């Protein structure tokens, strides 16, 4: 499928879902006469129209000038995809650990994970040094010197 085709279909679908969600909003008498629905309603209609226009234009365009997305992954592409997935999951886990464990520990762990993922297992010494010093330097800089509140977690002092 061509890129514009996917974009157009996506726009129509999202616009449709958004339109339904908008129509289900609560209406409020107090406040302004326009209400909370009007603006989203305009946007939803606009998005659907834009999507349709793009689709119509794309169908008229000759086949050879369309840019196509390839879904088949090369072995290298697979590796990249795995890295992206692992990073994303690590980021979300980091979010869950930050408050209970505190900034220092959870950041060091998160960075260590990323470093091992990207910088290979062989350079483990470098990985450990970079992770721990990143966590320490940013903590000292922001929490200690600038008094921004970073979670203390289990290192309550």
């Amino acid at each position, binding site marked *: 499928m061509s890129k514009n085709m996917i974009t157009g279909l996506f726009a129509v679908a999202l616009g449709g879902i958004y339109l339904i969600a908008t129509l289900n909003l609560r209406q409020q008498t107090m406040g302004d006469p326009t209400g909370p629905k009007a603006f*989203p309603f305009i*946007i939803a209609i606009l998005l659907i129209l834009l999507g349709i226009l793009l689709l119509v234009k794309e169908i008229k365009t000759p086949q050879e000038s369309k840019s196509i997305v390839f879904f088949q992954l090369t072995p290298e592409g697979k590796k990249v995809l795995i890295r992206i997935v692992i990073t994303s999951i690590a980021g979300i886990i980091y979010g869950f650990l930050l408050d209970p464990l505190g900034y220092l520990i959870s*950041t060091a762990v998160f960075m260590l994970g990323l470093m091992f993922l990207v910088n290979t297992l062989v350079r483990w010494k470098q990985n450990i040094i970079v992770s721990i010093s990143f966590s320490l330097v940013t903590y000292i800089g*922001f929490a200690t010197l600038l008094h921004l509140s970073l979670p203390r977690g289990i290192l309550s002092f």
Partner: protein
Amino acid sequence: MLDSLNYLALGMHEAFTATNIFWVLIGGILGTVIGMLPGLGPATGVAVLIPVTYGMNPTTALITMAGVYYGAMFGGSRASILINTPGDASAIVTCWDGYPMARNGQAGKALAISAWASFVGGMISVIFIVFLALPVARFALKFGPAEMFALLVFSLTATVTLSKGNLLKGFISLCLGFIISTIGIDAQTGVMRFTMGFGSLQDGIDFLVAMIGLYAVTEVFKNYASLDANYGVSTSDIGKVSMTRADWKQCLGPILRSTPLGFIVGVLPGMGGTIATLLAYSTEKQINKHPENFGKGAMEGVAAPEAANNASSVGAMIPLLTMGIPGSGTTAVMLGALMMLGIQPGPTLFTQHPEIPWGVIASMIIGNLLLLAINLPLVKPLVQLLKIPQRILLPMIMGLAFMGTYLMNYSASDFFLLVLFGIGGLLMSKLDIPIPPMVLALILGGMLEQSFRQALTIGNGTPVLFFTKPISIVLLVLAVLSIVYTLVKDSRAKARISKGQAA
């Protein structure tokens, strides 16, 4: 006129003390560093200084905070140029040509241009503020809901016409941004919209999360494909770190045009810096002889927004100093800090304590000079950062992105959104959907909707205000013209190509 000069002399006298210069220097350095980090902007920089300013006299305190503010403006674009990650909303536009310049091996030159453009823009604006503060403040009062709406429409159409390629896709991207901007509690009525039951979405999605995700995280994801290459540029070629005479000749016009524009827009409440950079960039692209170079590393594309940005940050001080009204998040924090020192900025400040506002204005001159002196030597070491191997740099950018996201709301629940935006940005770039309209619509969408509805409320539910206020009419007509102009230009370009093929 003479009065202003007398007062300025008083201000100079007030500002030029060793203590004040020391603090403006500290503030400038701190601001530069904070501005460089994604998610941390001038508001945070000023806020962290509040405890430090407790013991100071009010002028020193205000000068220190102004130093942080301008420092962050200088610093905000560093990361835009080097790693395509704007430090703040007003640094987004600088990415468009700054990063391509870095990729072309001109990182040093781009940084130098941005520092000089910021400096010149800032200095000229100080002259404006000395002579024009009051008339400009009066002019800004004319901007009610209808005028704000028209200005936002005009700015946002500029983002679409600017984005490379397909106009339709630009508008689709714009709509995506609007959709995200409507998530959360509706400010006018308090109705909860599109939160899908997540309590953390009540306050809406912070544009900074989207910005960090769509720029920093997406950029890291893209670079996962080429881990052994160096980030952005080859290490041997970082380019010249200074501006030649020819560079100056090319950039001076854009700087001089963008400065007054940025200054006036900066006085308006809200997202002054973002709108100013956008309008400056689009104006320069429209009048340039080689608009096709924009987006591929045109020097003018760095100089114009940088000058406009600094000019707008000077302009933003006007409502604070003359009316006591904070036009931006940063100046709101400054207002709070000043009140704790027993100073209430406002119309009486100029008559009762002229040394304070004029001291601040004078300190802008010192601040700009010092920031240039800090930033030019920083160019070389900063460019060296690009020499860090990708395998170490990428995790560190990731770490900073997460830390910045946390510090924005002191909450880790945004991490999920950050990752989501990172992936979303990657998909969008795979589909050739331009990202900037979406980010800018997200930033400005809330204001657009609010001003739209405010105007309708005042007009008893009719859109009469948009078509009766002269400023609003002019801006709306300009918006329509800019779309038509782009369409005509595109179809002409296409006609020329097909003609060329036929021949």
